[in-house]
């Protein structure tokens, strides 16, 4: 079963490059690029080109439609909301400003940011430590214990949230950042991912470090971790995004309004959709904007993170 999947990575025939890229254990996807080698073959011309552009444009229109209408509503003053949902006629930033303050979204964004950061950092730390142990160290029962760790991936979050809430409550951590983050400080997914990447590190590196008298921690800090930086970046983004988007857990754990995260804040806003729909949409825009920007900036890492488990079998 352990057939490693060797894919010709996009655009590279060079074996050194291949090795370097394979070290991060994930495919790189060029969202903006072109398949270099077969330009002629894949490049439609003439009518087919126009047709392809047309089709793409039509699909874009459909995919973007909900975002488009949301933006329009968020920028319209209250009395014009039903006039022309498809055409932006009036334009004002007042609604967004109102959602920001009255909807308390500034507070919620900060809360989400803090929780997501805590979870991301801790997931990275615990995953690196555990993955290192599984990949580099040798001890009896290693495979079995790894299997047990991975088995936790099978437990859906919904099944355990009620009990987790009680645990957090008895620790006195309701309405705190600790309470919001502690169940997610370690994840078998991160351990799995990093272990795979650590396994690709050449043994010679380890032996060289041993000869130099560098202990495990030193090796980890100075050699192993820097080498797997791309995967760490991917995992970080994946964790951040996952925590930012959590909906059920904050709803369970928060009873003080000020500690709400952005997603549970949206739920509060939803109650007003019938009498102030543009306010709700403005809140949605505010909630979604940070992640859209993050996606643009960290495009490469995001894609790497999402594809990490996919292409390899």
């Amino acid at each position, binding site marked *: *079963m*352990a057939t490693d999947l060797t894919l010709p990575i996009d655009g590279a025939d060079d074996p050194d490059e291949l090795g370097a890229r394979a070290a991060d254990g994930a495919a790189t996807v060029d969202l903006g690029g072109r398949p270099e080698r077969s330009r002629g073959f894949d490049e439609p011309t003439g009518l087919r080109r126009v047709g392809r552009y047309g089709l793409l444009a039509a699909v874009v229109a459909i995919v973007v439609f909900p975002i488009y209408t949301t933006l329009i509503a968020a920028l319209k003053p*209250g*009395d014009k*909301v*039903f006039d022309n949902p498809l055409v932006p006629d009036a334009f004002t930033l007042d609604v967004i400003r109102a959602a920001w303050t009255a909807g308390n979204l500034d507070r919620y964004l900060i809360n989400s940011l803090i929780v997501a950061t805590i979870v991301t950092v801790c997931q990275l730390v615990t995953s690196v430590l555990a993955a290192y142990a599984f990949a580099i160290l040798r001890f009896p029962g290693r*495979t079995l214990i790894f*299997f047990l760790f991975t088995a936790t991936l099978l437990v859906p979050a919904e099944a355990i949230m009620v009990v987790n*809430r*009680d645990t957090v*409550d*008895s620790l*006195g951590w*309701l309405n705190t950042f600790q309470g919001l983050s502690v169940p997610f400080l370690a994840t078998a997914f991160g351990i799995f991912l990093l272990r795979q990447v650590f396994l690709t590190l050449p043994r010679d590196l380890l032996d060289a470090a041993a000869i130099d008298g560098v202990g495990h921690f030193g090796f980890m800090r100075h050699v192993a971790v820097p080498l797997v930086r791309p995967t760490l970046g991917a995992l970080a983004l994946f964790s951040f995004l996952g925590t930012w988007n959590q909906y059920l857990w904050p709803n*369970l754990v928060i*009873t*003080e*309004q000020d500690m709400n995260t952005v997603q549970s804040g949206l*739920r*509060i806003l939803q*109650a*007003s*959709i*019938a*009498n*102030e729909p543009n306010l709700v949409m403005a809140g949605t825009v505010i909630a979604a904007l940070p992640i859209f920007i993050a996606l643009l900036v960290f495009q490469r890492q995001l894609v790497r993170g999402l594809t990490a488990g996919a292409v390899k079998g």
Partner: protein
Amino acid sequence: MTPTRRSRVDVAQSVRTLFTRTAVLVLAGVVAGACSSGESILTIGQEDAVSTTTAAVAPPSTDASGSTIAPTSTVAPTTTQAPLAEFGDCPVEALDGADGPVGITFWHGLGNDLENALIALTDEYNASQDRVVVDLQNQTSYDSAIDKYIQSSQDGRPNVIQFPEYTLQSFAQSGTLIPVEACIQASGYDTAPFLDRALDAYTFEGIGWAMPFNVSNPVLYYNRKVFEAAGLDPDDPPITLEELRAASQAIVDSGAATYGWVVDSGANSGGGWFLEQWFGRAGELYADNGNGRVAPATRVLYDDSTGVELLTFVQQMIADGLAVSVGDNSGGTDAFLKVADPVAPGAMTIGTSAAMGLVFSALGGGLIPGLTAEDVGVGPMPGPGEEIGAQVGGGSLWIVGEKGDEETAAAWDFIQFLVSAESQSEWAAATGYVPVRSDSVDIEPLASTYATDPRYKVPYDQLLTSVEGEASLSPVIGPQREVRVATANAVAAIFDGADVATSLADAAAQSNALIASYNQRN
């Protein structure tokens, strides 16, 4: 001799086998259980779900005209009342000895302008004295507040919490709250100006558990312009069911609106609460044991001829095109929006009086082009019988126990402020809630509000003129929320055209099972 290491392939192999076997097991389980047992999940673990309870009231008998007569109780009217002291002390003096302001938390479930009014009141309280500081926490909705309360440990619970009226029994029996009556008696608080109805509404087994705070009841909202266009008098809205039907007929015939009456089947509106209110107006019992007020209810009675008549009436109006249903109204405003619909509007709808402020301000903000706040008429709830009347609805304030003397005293101090005459006057004027005490009506700002905009006075008048009787207080049922949901399901089916008697009987059976399950476990 070193043993050969189990290769990765073997581990993978055993993982595969494990998965295969699990898959087969799950499939087998699915096949085995595929035939649904047909039983409700709630009856699991019940020995005999339909238990023979100590029936305190004989089944109602019907007279010739078809309406039921409330029979005389076969048990003494008041149950054996446990001494008040058993439920916790209210050390009202403790606040005097406190050094420094005592901080307490208050959970509520209001939104929009109702929340704003509550924030204003709380800020006023905090600013007016320095012994208590109140931290207001919005739990988004009543249901959310209830859930959070139940799930929290006692430490995580607030000092004061607002619960809706349909949770009386379950929280009275929870053992986690101190009856407000303990504080009233300990401090000698004068409840004479209070509306008796309001205080009685929150009395369970002889003890006053909660302080009524935001009292509401259903009222009729209607479009005055449509009434005029249909030749109806906009100052004389329909009061009886016959008038309701006649008005709807006139409206539809004249073409002033597409439908006369907009109904919904939400659990806390058309599918549950309004039905309870109609039974009250008809003088009929909704649940046994005197609507659960004489002794804890053991079963519901709404599948009798009254219930069938009422819902058949509504179903008939829908079938005749005079009324339209907007579904379960999960957003809370679907019925109102149907009245404001530009294409196929309705003319009237029954809604809670608590929504008055929201309706007026939303229309005043220009939400619906062509419709202003002045175009909305508010009248008493139409229903069975000739006289108007309604039961107390809305929410109340509860004091959470085991919080320490100072915090308990602080909670009581805050509650006193919220139900003072001035506060209730402000509150009612800002929101459309009914003031819980009659002396608030003569104080500003409510006096002016009632004088200038009599629409705000409708729910108040409706409450005062209600006929006294066994059904004048709303039903108290242990699992009342769940019972309302079961009833709402039946009402939704009825609005879709299902047979009324069967649907009601099914809902009643489900409700009785819920009640039995609750009584067994609590």
